[in-house]
Each structure stands twice: as C-alpha cells, then as structure tokens.
C-alpha cells in the first residue's frame, strides 16, 4: 500500500487513524505537519533523558493552536454587535446555571440522535457529517445527579478527559462548591448540555428557545462551556 504524506496526516481526522486530539493535522500544510512530527520525535528523544512530558504537551498544544489560527477566508459567523446584560444582583444572591456543548446527558435520558438507542462514541464519530447537518438537541440534567449517571457522547472531540472527570467540561462540582462557600447564591436545579457539532444556523435558531427555558428556570447568570 502506498500512501502520500497528505493522506497520512488527513487520516487522523475521521479517517483510518482517527484521533480527535490530533484531527488538526488535516488543517496543516504538509510542511507544517512534517515539522511537527520532527519536533515531536526530537522532544521524545529529550524526554528519554529528562523524563519530562511538559515540552511534549506544549508542542502538541501549540500545533493545535497553529492549525486553528484564522486564515484569509472570511469567518461566516462573525458579528459586529456585542450583546451585554448587566447582572441584576450580587453573585452571592444569584442562581447560577450551566450549559455546555460537551454532549452530556443523564443516564436513562439519552437524546438518541437519529433515533438510535445507546449510540456509541464510535458511531457518533462515524456519523459526524450527519450531526453537522442537524439541529442540536438540548439535554436537561438534574444538577444533583449522581456522577455515575452522567453520560457523555460527542463525535467532535476527544471525550476521554471528560469521562475521567466530568468537571473538565461540565463543572457541576465547582458550582456546588461555590454555593456551599457562599460565593454564589445557588445552583440552578437543572443544568443543560448539547452536542455542539450541529448545523450552526439551526443552533442559533434553537438557542432563542433555550433562552426562554432558562428564563423560566429563573437563572440569573449562565456559565457556558464549549469544547
């Protein structure tokens, strides 16, 4: 089998070597990707002696930023206005909510994308292009849910981290700590999450309805976490 370097680096983005932590290789030029691999190997060579992983992590982090840097193509969803609402009361009197695009949901309340029951993470990755054409579905999650009943599935990012510790993208425990210490008034009884990989025009449309839901929940401040 003969494979070009371009085919190789693109295979990490939903291809034969799919790895959502490194799907950015697809957006690099061949030259950038080659330099990245060379520096990576050099750094591994160093770590044989030093045992330090930080330079490796930093290298991958910077490559990710470089691959996502804006280029000359116009950004489709840019806006000129800057919406702003003043807080109504001090935080220690405020009800704080959470809404993330991390794809969390409660066990027993699977949003069942495309009508598929118990969709696996792998299937979500395999069907990413279908997700990107669909409207997002908002999952309501009881704030006091047992951590063992919190599920996550999202075809657009590497979910291994959040599966180890949901607070990485769904900081429920930090909200409760802040309520206990009096930093915030209270945690909203219902928290929310959706799969951010969705048709953007339809996200915008759905979001205005979600806003009404949050007003009904009497939320004063909303923390949002994209992934």
């Amino acid at each position, binding site marked *: 089998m003969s494979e070009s370097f371009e085919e190789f680096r693109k295979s990490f983005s939903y291809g034969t070597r799919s790895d*959502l*932590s490194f799907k950015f290789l697809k957006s690099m030029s061949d030259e950038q990707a080659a330099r990245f691999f060379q520096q990576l190997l050099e750094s591994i060579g160093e770590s044989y002696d030093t045992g330090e*992983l*930080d330079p490796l*992590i*930093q290298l991958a*982090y910077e490559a990710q*930023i470089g691959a*996502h*840097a*804006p280029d000359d193509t116009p*950004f489709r*969803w*840019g*806006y*000129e*206005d*800057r*919406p*702003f*609402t*003043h*807080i*109504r009361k001090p*935080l220690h009197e405020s009800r704080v909510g959470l*809404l*993330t*695009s991390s794809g969390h949901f409660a066990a027993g309340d699977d949003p069942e994308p495309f009508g598929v029951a118990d969709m696996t993470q792998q299937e979500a990755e395999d069907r990413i292009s279908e997700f990107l054409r669909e409207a*997002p579905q908002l999952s309501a999650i009881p704030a006091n849910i047992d951590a063992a009943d919190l599920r996550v599935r999202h075809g657009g990012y*590497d*979910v291994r*981290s*959040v599966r*180890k*510790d949901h*607070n*990485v*993208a769904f*900081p429920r425990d*930090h909200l409760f700590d*802040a309520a206990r210490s009096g*930093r*915030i008034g209270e945690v909203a009884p219902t928290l929310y999450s*959706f799969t*951010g990989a*969705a048709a953007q025009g339809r*996200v915008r449309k759905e*979001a*205005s309805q*979600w*806003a009404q839901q949050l*007003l009904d929940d009497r*939320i004063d*401040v*909303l*923390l*949002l*976490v*994209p*992934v």
Partner: protein
Amino acid sequence: MSVGHVAREIEQAGIATVSIYVRSFRHVAEQMGVPRTVITRNPMGRPLGAPGDVERQKAAFEAALQLVESARSGGALQELEDPYRPGHL
C-alpha cells in the same frame, strides 16, 4: 461556534453569560462577540483543566465568576496565563 450563538441569544434575552474557551478558539469568541470570555491555555476538549486538576479547574471557574462581576460591556475577555499541566486522578 455553537456556544457563541447560544451565548449571544441568551445574553440578548436578558441573562448574563460567561463562557470558558480554550486558546485555540479565542478568535471564534472574539469574532462572534461572545459577551464575556475566559480563555484557558489548555488543549481542546479540556476547557477548565486536566482531569483531576481541581486547582486549575477552580481557578478557571473563579475567573469566570470574577469576569461576570467586573465586565461593563460586551466582548469582555480575559486569557489566563497558566500553561496546561496533567492532573492527578
């Protein structure tokens, strides 16, 4: 981009919002006019910090609360300087 749309719509509906983005998406938050943004220097998929790094996660969370208290106009943005580090599970 999804959260940018959601933040804008909810802010316009009268609820103050704050969003925690990783550095790779900073330009998205800026160009979409996200009302209040905290940027963390973490890899994608780990917006608040590494799994088990309670200290950094709490720092990002607290920075978001402080931005809610301090922001006086839309497009407020603060980038945290701490580099990513693995946590303790």
